[in-house]
């Protein structure tokens, strides 16, 4: 009896177009994040730091719309970049299809929740009226 021909078995559905988009996004967002994230670290973690920053500091900072746009760009570019990076890690180390789907679902939920919360805060701004001493 002749041996049956070896055929490649598709283990998981392949989404080449989506993967190419992710590949491209990781590079473009990464390069944009270099000035954005390095600048953010320099301004908020070196020149200013946690000993200087408080709610009023953020209030005066966000009085300039430019900083809100800067922070919004950072929020969206960085967090999506991070979660897509997590997707690579999940694909590399989690081989059970159910667990893999579950973890990716969790990552999407986390992304939706945190980008929503972060954007609401950026638009809403610092609620100075809630601070006993004001600013």
């Amino acid at each position, binding site marked *: 009896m002749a041996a049956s021909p070896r055929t490649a078995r598709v283990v998981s559905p392949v989404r080449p177009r989506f993967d190419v988009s992710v590949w491209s996004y990781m*590079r473009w967002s*990464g*390069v944009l*994040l*270099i000035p954005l*994230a*390095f600048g953010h*670290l320099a301004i908020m*973690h*070196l020149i200013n*730091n*946690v*000993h200087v*920053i*408080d*709610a009023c500091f*953020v*209030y005066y900072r966000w009085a300039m719309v430019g900083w809100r746009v800067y922070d919004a760009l950072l*929020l969206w570019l*960085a*967090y999506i970049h*991070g*979660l897509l*990076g*997590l997707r690579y*890690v999940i694909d*590399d*180390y*989690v081989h059970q299809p159910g667990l893999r789907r579950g973890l990716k679902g969790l990552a999407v939920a*986390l992304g939706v929740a*945190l980008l929503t*919360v*972060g954007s*609401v*805060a950026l638009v*809403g*701004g*610092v*609620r*100075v009226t*809630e*601070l*006993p001493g004001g600013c």
Partner: protein
Amino acid sequence: MHGLGLLLRQGLTYRGGLYQLSWVAHRIAGLGTLLFLTIHIVDTSLVFFAPELYNHAIQLYRNPFFGIGEVILVGCVLWHGLNGLRIAVSDWFPHLWSPQTQRPMLTAVVVAFLVLYIPVAAYMLVTIVARGFMGG
């Protein structure tokens, strides 16, 4: 999570040298930054949802324990950014993916990282010590 343990063991035993280590460091730095970012988005959002609680959160970050974490975070972002730039540029111009080009590129990344990180980390550590262990 046997995966991460395997990653660390491979990073130390696989004979990929500095290239392999740069990849392991890139991955760990990325995951570390993602973890920080998740916490950081929540705490910053408190300025809208509960401004008094935001001030309390910042007060916690003034603790030297978090200060050390911040020094590590800056290292993670710096390495991930510089090494990531090498990957992106090499992918856009694939002829750069030759051992003759990658060696000086990786050396440049390591040198740039050390030149930027050593003074920055030193400055941050001095601030931590100057503020004292009660967090100023």
